[in-house]
């Protein structure tokens, strides 16, 4: 009951204080541990080139993770984001091939993303269907639709615009990939919104306890509806970055991407039950998993071991986090 209220009051203190007070610290330690471990064991891991590469690779999950986390915080789930990645790449690439305009391509992609967000949001918030079912359904529909439309063939980026290629190859100051810059800026904007704007508080309240949120005068349905649109638009941005990285619209793009993002988000302390968590935590969750997979690759570990270890770490991290939370509640 009081969880939503306590969250809105927590939004005040400085970044550092919150970091220390909550689980972000544990996550940060975990991330440092991962980086330290691989710096010692994996050749070439701790190099500017490799670290910035990982940031570029993480930009997809970071961007989509923001939306995923916000939907979680509102008490819903969105597992359609993987299929969305493949879907929005179609208008993006097709429009760019036709018009040679990055702006038009991106507009087309965002329009598609918006429509998908509206559909997911409407069916969940207004038609009242369980969001897991809705997004499971739209996940199948979109993936199948992409397969049908493309005949299961990738569509190449024939326009090959310099501005689009820069999304994949370009680096700010020749160091940080632009894709990572985009992800970090978006993260900062949304983290600010979640902590310091009324809408952020509304999301926590709605996810924490819809009844209370309603009594407090919030439009629960509207808040959830908007969260789905945010999620779809951010996943669209991730989809655009992915399309640039693979230079094409891929019908299999984003397969299992939703698992990756959901795992990272929950690892980052964003509860599936709603009302709990922070975007900083989500970002740390994404980085931990990304550095982990990069490091395991660097060690030359075969896929099977990478899978086994990643699985164990996800379970262990969430279990550890739960134990800590229970101790905190108990004490």
């Amino acid at each position, binding site marked *: 009951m009081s969880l939503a209220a306590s969250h809105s009051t927590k939004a005040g203190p400085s970044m550092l204080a919150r970091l220390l007070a909550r689980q972000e610290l544990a996550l940060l330690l975990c991330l440092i541990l991962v980086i330290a471990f691989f710096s010692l064991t994996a050749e070439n891991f701790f190099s500017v080139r490799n670290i910035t590469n990982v940031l570029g690779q993480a930009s997809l999950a970071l961007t989509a993770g923001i939306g995923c986390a916000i939907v979680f915080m509102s008490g819903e789930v969105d597992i359609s984001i993987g299929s969305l990645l493949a879907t929005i790449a179609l208008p993006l690439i097709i429009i760019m091939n036709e018009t040679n305009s990055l702006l038009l391509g991106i507009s087309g992609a965002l329009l598609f993303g918006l429509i998908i967000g509206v559909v997911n949001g409407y069916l969940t918030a207004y038609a009242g269907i369980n969001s897991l*079912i809705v997004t499971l359904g739209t996940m199948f529909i979109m993936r199948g639709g992409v397969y049908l439309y493309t005949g299961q063939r990738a569509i190449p980026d024939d326009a090959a615009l310099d501005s689009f290629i820069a999304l994949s190859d370009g680096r700010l100051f020749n160091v940080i990939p632009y894709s990572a810059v985009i992800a970090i800026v978006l993260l900062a904007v949304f983290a600010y919104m979640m902590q310091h704007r009324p809408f952020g508080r509304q999301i926590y309240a709605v996810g924490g306890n819809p009844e209370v949120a309603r009594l407090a005068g919030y439009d629960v349905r509207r808040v959830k509806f908007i969260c789905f649109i945010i999620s779809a638009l951010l996943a669209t941005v991730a989809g655009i970055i992915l399309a640039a990285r693979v230079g094409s619209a891929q019908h299999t793009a984003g397969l299992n991407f939703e698992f990756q993002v959901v795992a990272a988000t929950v690892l980052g302390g964003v509860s599936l039950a709603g009302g709990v968590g922070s975007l900083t935590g989500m970002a740390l969750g994404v980085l931990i998993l990304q550095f982990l997979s990069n490091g395991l690759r660097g060690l030359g570990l075969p896929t*099977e071991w990478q899978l*086994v270890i990643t699985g164990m770490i996800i379970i262990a991290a969430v279990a550890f986090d739960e134990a800590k939370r229970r101790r905190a509640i108990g004490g």
Partner: protein
Amino acid sequence: MQTGKQVNRPVLAGKFQTATLPENEMDMSELTQSSAPRRFIGGQLLGSSQLVLGVILAVLCIAISIAAPQFYSEANIIAILRQCALVLIVASGMTMLIITAEVDLSVGASLAFVGCIGMAVLNSTHSLTLGLLAALAFSGAVGLFNGLVVTRLKVNSLIATIGTMMMLQGGVYLFTREAVQNHHRLASFTDLGAGYIGAIPLPVVIAALIFALAAATLRFTTLGRYLYAVGANERAVRLSGVRSQRLKLFAFVVTGLCVGIAGMILSSLMNAGQPTAGRGFELTVIAAVILGGTSLLGGRGSLLGTLLGVLVLKVIDNGIIILGWNQDLQMVVPGIVIILATYLDIVRNRANVG
């Protein structure tokens, strides 16, 4: 039934219940109100969602058979039933599990692993019994592991079983890099997938038995009532002195054992233990269960619904092939049906309440 509560349901419906979160508090009266009446609905011949599904199924069958008369051939019906059997076996366990408000995404990965282990044991022992026991022991252990992680370590089951899924996907390749071939050539093993009892394929008979057992447990036993109660309001059940964790553990293990049986049937059908098998199987199973009206929130659902859900999905799958349509539709159509069926169910509920 409280009208207000019912109308609110859909808004709440997106939430996952986790064991420890205090905001899911409900009192004891809520337990009796939310779980017991629903059980009665399930107890009637056809609940609302089953009725919707039954109509959908009938329409599908009629439409497909008008367009393609081969749909009603004996061979095709047997092919559909055999495909349904695998899904239904696992879905029987999964229904129980989802009723307790938990879920298991590792069943697809486990299905592949079980088949490899069963086949390897068969190869070295030449005993169907030992092969089956090994498969059941393994899959039961996977279920137990999932259950312990969820109930003891309090990890959300969606995440815990994604973790297990990854471990099993990796683990099966550590166990074998190639498909485990059938070197034992036991006839009884081949019968497991391809055999018949009378005119009915053996896997269908096995699925029917498991289905009946699970349905009877849910409907007629105290255990079944507790499973519903745990899903509807775990806290209340715990307060009333029942060990709710044990019940969830039970449901996880049962799901695991079902996977063991299905895995052996699949490896018999393929005549090999295939480490690549079962991809996406978990989504088919879960889709069938929720299509059948079992709520992911827990506390509500029935096996009859699950049976209809399995049939609808597999008839669609089969129909698309029989009609010679683009097989990519095998993804699009179930997606639409899942959303539509759930929506129709909600509309019916609203109409009833209003």
